[in-house]
């Protein structure tokens, strides 16, 4: 019962938040809603006994990613309402609606009726974090290391990209704008 209440509450909240992200005209609202949505999602993680993920979700998303986005927003000066020239709205919504219907229709099919033998079953009395840690450093060591490389790449990339000095003459920018 508690699970149901929690699930529906969080679901409504997350959908609402993400709805704001998608539909809001104000970038600040949008971002804030995103941050909120992330936090509520972590609620699901706790609900699903994935405490480690819940923590990571809050720390990484709200702590790091949203901070970076915030920095970006300040840089781009997009705190005000933004105008978006959205064309072919009908197509967009038809597509979105269809994709939603199809995805949901498909995902509604009962899959777990056939029990699947867990490859890496959670061991009783062992905390989630411990288990995850164990897996990460045995089975998923290589992905973990690669993820490290990926983050390194992202870091280098971010730095290098921001460092890039402008070379081309302003005329080229004119061309760029003229291309609209």
């Amino acid at each position: 019962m508690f699970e149901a209440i929690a699930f529906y509450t969080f679901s409504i909240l997350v959908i609402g938040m993400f709805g704001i992200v998608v539909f809001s005209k104000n970038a600040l609202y949008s971002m804030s809603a995103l941050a909120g949505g992330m936090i509520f999602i972590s609620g699901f993680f706790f609900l699903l006994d994935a405490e480690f993920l819940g923590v990571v979700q809050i720390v990484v998303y709200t702590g790091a990613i949203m901070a970076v986005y915030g920095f970006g927003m300040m840089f781009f000066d997009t705190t005000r309402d933004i105008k978006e020239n959205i064309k072919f709205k009908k197509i967009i919504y038809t597509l979105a609606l269809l994709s939603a219907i199809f995805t949901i229709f498909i995902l509604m099919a009962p899959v777990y009726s056939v029990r699947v033998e867990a490859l890496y079953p959670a061991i009783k009395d062992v905390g989630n974090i411990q288990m995850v840690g164990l897996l990460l450093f045995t089975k998923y060591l290589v992905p973990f290391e690669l993820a490290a490389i990926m983050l390194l790449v992202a870091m280098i990339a971010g730095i290098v990209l921001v460092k890039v000095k402008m070379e081309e003459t302003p005329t080229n920018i004119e061309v760029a704008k003229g291309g609209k």
Partner: protein
Amino acid sequence: MITLTHYLVLSGILFSLGIVGVLRRKNLLMLFFSTEILLNAVNIGFTAVSKYYGDLSGQIFSFFIIAIAASEVAVGLGLLVLWYKRSGTVDLDSLQMMKG
């Protein structure tokens, strides 16, 4: 009783929301927000499946997805900064030099 299907449907709804965002956003920054929604939607699904199967791989996958999301943000914002410095806008319609 909340079943796995509930979670999967929620995941699907959120994924679709993300797609709506990707489709309608013209502001690149906000478009990136939508891609985050996509990944988060999948994360819920993974964790739920993980729970119901009693298998931890799903959680691990979610974990790595979070890492990937973080990396993407770094690179994506880097590119946006570059473009903003160059053109003074992050509007997607400014990227129209090449076509045809």
